């Protein structure tokens, strides 16, 4: 089903003011509920206000309340964002994630060429980068072969555990 088909369906459901809908065919199944929630908190007079709507939509994990003023975040180069471990959904490919905390190096030495660049085809076991941690240089290898679609970290940037470094397809 493509998005246009879906949109047509949704328009029809909305026009008919359908609240719950369930459809199963050979190739797909679909369930939805629409309209204000039944029950106490969703009283008709309710939904007034700013909501972390997209987070809620994309992520089933809990969302902490947003403080009125988040602490001024230091712009220090050594400050990976808290959200880093969540892989950006923008590009396609399997993510290669940092297995340790450290500093990302794209090449073996400052004047060497980077291990890989976007568009390169890599094979499983090939070195993709180095993460320096506790003064040790840790070579990070590709777990599977493919084409490097994106490199998400700049040379000499700090990376945290689970941060996506490459997308390989």
């Amino acid at each position, binding site marked *: 089903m493509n998005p246009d088909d879906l949109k047509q369906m949704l328009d029809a459901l909305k026009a008919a003011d359908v609240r719950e809908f369930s459809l199963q065919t050979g190739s797909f199944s679909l369930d939805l509920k629409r309209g204000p929630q039944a029950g106490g908190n969703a009283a008709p007079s309710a939904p007034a206000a700013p909501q972390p709507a997209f987070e809620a939509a994309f992520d089933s994990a809990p969302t902490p309340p947003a403080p009125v003023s988040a602490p001024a975040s*230091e712009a220090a180069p050594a400050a990976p964002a808290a959200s880093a471990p969540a892989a950006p959904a923008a590009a396609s490919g399997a993510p290669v994630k940092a297995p340790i905390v450290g500093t990302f190096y794209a090449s073996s030495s400052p004047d060497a060429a980077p291990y890989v660049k976007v568009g390169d085809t890599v094979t499983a076991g090939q070195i993709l980068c180095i993460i320096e*941690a506790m003064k040790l240089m840790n070579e990070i290898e590709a777990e599977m072969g493919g084409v490097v679609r994106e490199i998400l970290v700049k040379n000499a940037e700090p990376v*945290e555990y689970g941060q996506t470094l490459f997308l390989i397809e």
Partner: protein
Amino acid sequence: MFKKILIANRGEIALRIIRTARELGVKTVVVYSTADEKSLPVLLADESVCVGPPASNASYLNIPNILQAALMTGAEGIHPGYGFMAENPDFAEMCREHGLVFIGPTPESMRALGSKAGGREIAANSNVPVVPGTGILPDLDAAVLAAKQIGYPVLLKASAGGGGRGQKIIRTQDELKKGFAQAQEEARLYFSDPDLIMEKFLEEFRHVEVQVMGDGTGHVIHIGERDCSIQRRNQKLIEEAPSTLPDSLRQEILAAGVRLAQHVNYAGAGTLEFIVDRDGNYYFMEMNTRIQVEHCVSEMISGLDLVRMQLEIASGHGLNLKQEDVVLRGHAIECRLNAEDPDKDFRPAAGRIDDVHFAGGPGVRVDSHVYTGYVIPPHYDSLIGKLIVHHDNRAEAIARMKRALEETVIQGPKTTIPLYIKIMDNPFYKRGAVMTNFLKTRMDM
């Protein structure tokens, strides 16, 4: 004062440290596991670094990742909180080797005090009474001989144990013969160290502990004592300050605690745990070389910020308070809000908190990292917050705690709150007749 510190912990204690740091203008970095990505400490810290997957040993105990996080964020010191690496002298030493300040005592004094045997020896040397008992027992024969001298019942304890784990009550020589090897094996398994010690087993006693603060050069003050006798499975549930002991006995125990800490030139915050029997005999048990969960009751009666004092001492500001500057007022009680089912042997309850609403008003303090919609991860302990009250005297503090507990709403997981409400109404609790077997003897649990 530090410009930036790293907090190697999670949950309410990470939040506690962030609060003081923010008030002091100290920047904070928290490390976190992937299970804690949406936690309040991560949100409120100035920086955060993910250091591993949910399992503690791969994240909150992952020394290389934590040290690397401190180095690359430019943190000057590491606050270990409690648990995890707070009493790990090797970690403290590695911090030092990497030019980072471990916010706690020196690795040397942690090592000296870290084992039960070492603690007993230091206590003896500083003229502080310990429960009749032994050093490390070389073998079963030595154990049998020692038990004869001490008199049954006795307690076999893992020398490296702590928090009530790794101990076994032995009531007869027969039990001792049957149980010795197994206790050694369990100690090896849990603490990587098979060494056992033996102590006189006291059937009934109070758990009273002394909060001290030292500057590392022999100046040590106490910030009163706490009674932590209400426990389940040797884990504290309710703590209060001061204790209900007679004042002369209180002063004796406080002095003993200071004496012992002075003996090791203790630096930073520490707690000396004592047991006190029905006859008013008190015995030193062990020293916890860190901030404790229940430090808040000491803060409430003293008006001091113990985490701030830790940061001041660790950053070289020293300890400017003299003992006479510490003025204790009123009475404070803390209830640990645990996501556990008290009716099912305190089974931990992970999962989503559908609604949370804490008590407020006069004399109420809440230290909690949870919020409506928070999901309690199953990987860590069940502490979801602490409710602390302060009032002029103990009876008023109990009334206030009951009022505050009744106001508190936590929907979703079962919690210990209903149990605490019952305890606040219990006549034995109300008159301070509380031994560590309180739940069993007075609450039929």
